[in-house]
């Protein structure tokens, strides 16, 4: 009878199309918006992921990765003095102003890597060599810089020269890294040169990156560094989640995306639920006939559930497929942000399951109460 149920569903084209469209739209809306939200959250943690150090040491008042409270240079040595530290290097990150060849300005995020080790270097160089950062006035720019400068009519390539706070910067490499939340290009250089680009200040150290010696865990090392006055050591993973939690708590982003996701749920329940109920309601006469002919309640329940979960599965597939296609398209352009971890389709599957179960249960209540004798009325 499940075959019969599916034929009844698929051949009622108007309602079937309405059901699938409703659920597909609902899945698309929830999946796409959740993925954009996740993508946005990933942008907020771009610095953490791009640098990739095991332990980050910051000012004790820092609440998230993108909040820089400058520290004294001596903090690097204080961290190095902690037992169990394999290495500790300085990192500068600051927003500076670049002046392009045509005189226009562009805010950039200057990343100053430890001159000796270049710890935190970009992993994906698309042109040039990162080691060339040790040459005079050299910088490595990311793909966002190339794109933003291109829009202003300036082609960035190896050897291109521009200015950062009136000081010369010569491109010796182009890299591909995760883009930042504010969309400013990353300009990599050495720590010493970054300080020259930066506006003079008494404290200029943004972060101390550290790693534990063998046998010491990141957590243990962070705990030991935390005993130093005025410093806060955070494991990379913890900093990642701390940053995401901060943005969720302190910005309207989750409310904005959450509203759309809830709208998707409402659309799903309203359109799909109502249409499915109508579909079953329209077929009640035939279900009663089946019942009179000897169909058990469990057979009818299986038919209704098969119909509900079939449209749910198909609608979900189309919706998630469209969301993936959208993601694939925008990922090539890197905007808007899009990141679909497995939890997103799993969450959407759960919601669709809920909508289908809810619709089926409401319809089933009617089917179970159905008197077979109604076929004679």
């Amino acid at each position, binding site marked *: *009878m499940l*075959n*019969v149920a599916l*034929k*009844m569903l698929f*051949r*009622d084209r108007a309602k079937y199309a309405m059901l699938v469209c409703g659920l597909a739209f609902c899945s698309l809306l929830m999946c796409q918006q959740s993925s954009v939200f996740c993508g946005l959250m990933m942008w907020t943690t771009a610095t953490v992921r791009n640098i990739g150090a095991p332990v980050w040491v910051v000012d004790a008042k820092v609440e998230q990765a993108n909040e820089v409270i400058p520290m004294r240079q001596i903090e690097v040595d204080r961290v190095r003095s902690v037992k169990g530290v394999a290495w500790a290097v300085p990192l500068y990150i600051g927003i500076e102003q670049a002046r392009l060849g045509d005189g226009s300005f562009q805010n950039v995020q200057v990343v100053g890597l430890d001159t000796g080790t270049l710890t935190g270097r970009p992993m994906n160089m698309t042109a040039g060599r990162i080691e060339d950062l040790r040459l005079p006035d050299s910088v490595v720019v990311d793909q966002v810089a190339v794109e933003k400068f291109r829009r202003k009519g300036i082609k960035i390539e190896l050897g291109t020269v521009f200015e950062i706070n009136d000081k010369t910067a010569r491109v010796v490499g182009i890299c591909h890294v995760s883009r930042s939340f504010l969309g400013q290009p990353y300009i990599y250089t050495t720590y010493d040169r970054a300080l020259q680009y930066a506006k003079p200040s008494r404290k200029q150290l943004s972060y101390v990156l550290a790693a534990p010696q063998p046998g010491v865990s990141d957590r243990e090392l962070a705990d030991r560094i935390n005993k130093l006055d005025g410093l806060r050591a955070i494991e990379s993973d913890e900093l990642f989640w701390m940053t995401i939690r901060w943005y969720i708590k302190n910005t309207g982003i989750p409310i904005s995306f959450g509203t759309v996701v809830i709208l998707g749920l409402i659309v799903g329940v309203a359109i799909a639920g109502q249409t499915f109920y109508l579909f079953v309601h329209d077929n009640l*006469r*035939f279900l009663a*006939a*089946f*019942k*009179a*002919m*000897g*169909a*058990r309640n469990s*057979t009818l329940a299986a038919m209704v559930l098969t119909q509900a979960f079939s449209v749910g599965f198909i609608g979900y597939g189309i919706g998630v497929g469209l969301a993936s296609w959208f993601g694939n398209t925008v990922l090539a352009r890197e905007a808007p942000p899009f990141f679909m971890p497995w939890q997103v389709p799993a969450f959407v599957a759960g919601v669709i399951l809920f909508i289908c179960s809810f619709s089926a249960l409401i319809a089933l209540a009617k089917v179970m109460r159905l*008197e*077979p*004798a109604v*076929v*004679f*009325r």
Partner: protein
Amino acid sequence: MSDETKIAVRVENVVKTFSGGDSRVFALKGASLEARFGEILMIVGPSGCGKTTLLSVICGTLKFDEGKITVFDKDLGKMRNGDMTRFRRENIGFIFQQFNLIPTLTTVENVSIPLILQGKSTAEAERRARVVLEQVGLGEKFKSYPNQLSGGQQQRVAISRALVHEPRLIICDEPTAALDSVSGHKTLELLKASALQPDRCVIIVTHDSRIYQFADRIVQMDDGHVVGHFDDHTQLQHA
């Protein structure tokens, strides 16, 4: 075979009430009848006299309050719901007033439903459904949908569906109500030819006097009672 063994359905003093708020409405007030194997029994009477209620309790789609109904020596009053459902599935074929053909299923799919309900595979059920459709002259309409058929053809599909699993009791509720007189006659001729067999009983509820001539016996109802038994439709017309 004695007269007693020929009885397929025996209804004895059956009472059925429906509650309507504080009051109770008596639909059947002690109705009694017998239907024998190899005959077409028609239950006739004015609207609201209890014909359809009597049909519903005979085929076990409606429970009754008092009395006794025996179908093929099975006491329906003592059957549990599950047993009753299985009994209907195995022993009864239905022909409804509005045909109740599923509009999204082809004729062969509609006809195969009773067999699928009995657990037959779709292929086997459709094979047997084709045979029955051939017998009722719809061999060319296997793949047609109900809305592509005339009223008479739809009723023939409904008859095929009622016969495909070879039930011993055929229940027909106003089988000609939605048909013109020519189609109605053809339907009854077909029903008599294909459904009526020595080991089978056909019970028809109708108020269409044009088809009384097809009955072997007629039971007249009024106000919840059986008020007359006639072996010939002409007796009814003179009564």
